[in-house]
């Protein structure tokens, strides 16, 4: 056979992955808080090649009216991929995949939100994927959790999310596009820093032993991401705990 099957690409070179990471290493993460002036809370996140923006509105009045709950707030989560976020233009609008991701992401965040504080209202979360590079749902959940905190919504804890995968019979953390497309398994999870898992999905196959190792690895990745989320939130106001530079009032 002359034509090389794409599944033959080698995932490791000298023990390092295609982008030079070790098996248990995350891609670089950048988090910015409060990037949108019109939203009540917002967050922009870059995880490797993923670029995702999240906006939170609410609690606010529910429209259409019949969706409202008398005793608690409802949470709506919309995951959407921009048509230019992937190599081949994606047909815009919701599809089967984005409906599913919206549902599981909402269910990943809902357990920590104190919806009973806001009866008859809605908390809207919008997640827009600007550039995709495998692991957009985890990036979306990470951004949404920060945006919810930024909107001042009471939560029992933060949520952070990370995936583990299996390529070339090796368990790897935070798979990138090539590893996701041609790998053997993908296992995204979302959890509280305390270790309560609120989302777990699996694509492909893992033996029970591999599964346990993959979960352990993904949980460690999620804890590292939690520290970054925390640092981004604290950073937004850290310069403010001290009085600002003297005489620089805008009123002068």
């Amino acid at each position, binding site marked *: 056979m002359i034509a090389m099957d794409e599944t033959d690409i080698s995932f490791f070179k000298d023990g390092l992955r295609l982008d030079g990471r070790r098996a248990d290493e995350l891609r670089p993460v950048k988090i910015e808080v409060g990037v949108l002036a019109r939203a*009540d*809370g917002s967050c922009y996140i870059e995880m490797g090649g993923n670029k995702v923006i999240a906006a939170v509105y*609410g*609690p*606010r*009045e529910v429209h259409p009216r019949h969706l409202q709950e*008398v*005793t608690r707030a409802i949470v709506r989560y919309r995951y959407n991929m921009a048509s230019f976020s992937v190599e081949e233009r994606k047909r815009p609008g919701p599809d089967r995949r984005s409906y599913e991701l919206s549902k599981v992401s909402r269910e990943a965040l809902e357990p*920590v939100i*104190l919806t009973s*504080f*806001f*009866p*008859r*209202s809605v908390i809207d979360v919008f997640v827009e994927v600007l550039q995709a590079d495998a692991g957009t749902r985890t990036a979306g959940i990470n951004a949404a959790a920060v945006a919810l*905190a*930024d*909107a*001042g*919504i*009471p*939560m*029992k*804890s*933060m949520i952070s999310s990370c995936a583990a995968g299996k390529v070339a019979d090796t368990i790897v953390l935070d798979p990138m596009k090539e590893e996701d497309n041609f790998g053997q398994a993908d296992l995204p999870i979302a959890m*509280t*820093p*305390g270790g309560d898992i609120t989302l777990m999905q699996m694509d492909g196959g893992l033996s029970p032993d591999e599964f346990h190792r993959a979960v352990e690895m993904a949980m460690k990745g999620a804890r590292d991401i939690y520290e970054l*989320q*925390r640092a981004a*939130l*604290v950073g937004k*106001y*850290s310069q*403010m*705990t*001290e*009085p*600002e530079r003297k005489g620089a*009032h*805008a*009123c002068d």
Partner: protein
Amino acid sequence: MDRKVVVPGDLLSEDAKRSGEGTYVRDGSVYSLLYGLANFRDKINVIPLAGKYIPGPGDNVIGVVKDITFSNWIVDINSPYDGLLHISEYPKRIDNVEMSNHLRIGSSIMTKVKDVDPTMKVELTLNDRKLGPIRAGQVIEISHTRVPRLIGKGGSMISMLKKEVNCSIFVGQNGRIWISGSAKDMDLALRTITLIEREAHTNGLTDRIVDFLKREKGTRS
């Protein structure tokens, strides 16, 4: 004062009795519910840095009439929940048909939350001397999370402000503030309030505001 920025889920204390506003208790320890500033006193309170105004009984608020029904005015109070002002809560006895002669759609009112039921039906009242329709002055809007700082401990900031700028001021818990006075005084009050809003999270604010007012007045006379 011991203050620190916290995020939801941060462990604040291992003594459940110190749980204050914006915190919750799990397994005997106190955790933060909010992203905000934690105040460590006897009780630990977390003051949010953002969020919507949720009405509570006894709150003074400024609202705008947005609809009139058979016996209620529906009032926008800058919150996810609308306020209801019943005709019987108007200081005078009036008839249903002449409701819009007293308060029409778009009228601003200084009002008070009388009661909030568990389904968040918000009842308002105008039965107090200091409450009533707004006929003069101007209303400005700040984030409701900054209102406690504008009022100050035991009202220290607001009473100082009222005296210094020579204006009547009514602070609504929903972040709307009514000021009335001469054009010059209102302008100064407005700038001072914007300054307080922007620096609400800093320490020693009252002293800096006093300095600011002194300087402003010095340049004027």
